[in-house]
């Protein structure tokens, strides 16, 4: 079997952010379900949290290509 072990590293680095993004949107949905008028206020916070959490996975994929050689 041939391949690149860097992509395994990317898979590992995607676990944490995956769980994190899930938690963020779970909280966002919960919040909107409890108080629908708070949607406008919660939306930027949710996307912000997502963007910050997701950064780790993005680093993962960038590094997977960097250390490909």
């Amino acid at each position: 079997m041939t391949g690149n072990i860097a992509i395994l590293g990317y898979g590992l680095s995607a676990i944490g952010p995956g769980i994190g993004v899930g938690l963020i949107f779970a909280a966002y949905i919960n919040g909107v379900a409890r108080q629908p008028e708070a949607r406008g206020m919660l939306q930027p916070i949710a996307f912000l949290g997502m963007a910050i959490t997701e950064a780790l996975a993005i680093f993962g994929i960038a590094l997977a290509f960097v250390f490909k050689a």
Partner: protein
Amino acid sequence: MSIIALGMEGGGEGFTAPDASIFWEPVIGHEATAITRPVFLMVISAILVGWFLLATTKRRALVPSKGQMMTEGVYGLVRNSIAKDIIGSHDFLRFVPLLFTMFLLILVNNFFGVIPPFNYPTMSRIGFPVALALIIWVVFHIVGMKKHGFVGYWKSLVPSGLPKGMIPAIFFLELITDLFTRPVTLGLRLFGNMFAGHILMALFISGGWYMLQAGGILPVAGAVTWLFAVVMTLFEMLVEFLQAYVFTLLSALYIAGAVADSH
């Protein structure tokens, strides 16, 4: 080299998955001094955005035309739900032009990834998002220093009321965040999303093409793969919009952090 031809490499001997080399498309020149496809796309997008904004706002009317309505919708989104909500109603107005430009430029360049004659997300070349992130980085530091003064700005990084022993450590952490982590994540996030999304689409399409040409039952799988390529394209469009939104949102947040009154 087209993506389809890439999938066919090796003359049916096996499938070669697309890799980072599909992003290298010089048009004029070669090697380090080449003018590549994304450069042209960036120029086209700038002309396109400028023309569209001028055309839709030149003859403004109380009852807006379709174009004016679109422009106003996008402008309203950036002005009200990004700039005003985050920077605060006191001094958000002077940052709206910057944020609006960033949003539109990134949005159009991202959508170039799925619009047929272009088919290349400009931001999947690291140089473009890095330049945009650098602009934001310079802007939020400078407005912060103008507001608080040079020394005051760096002092305002540390929240007041900390125990004395904690201050150096917190200051060091905040310094790394402000000088390094923020611009790097801002640029890399945009780059990574566009890069990964485009390579994923290329993989689905070239893989489907390869399987369609194979014998036996594989063409069925190829058809399903192409169906998923369509689904991925739709998902990509969502991501492209979201990344433009997130980039602008984070820019606004960094600016808001720099101009906020220290508590």
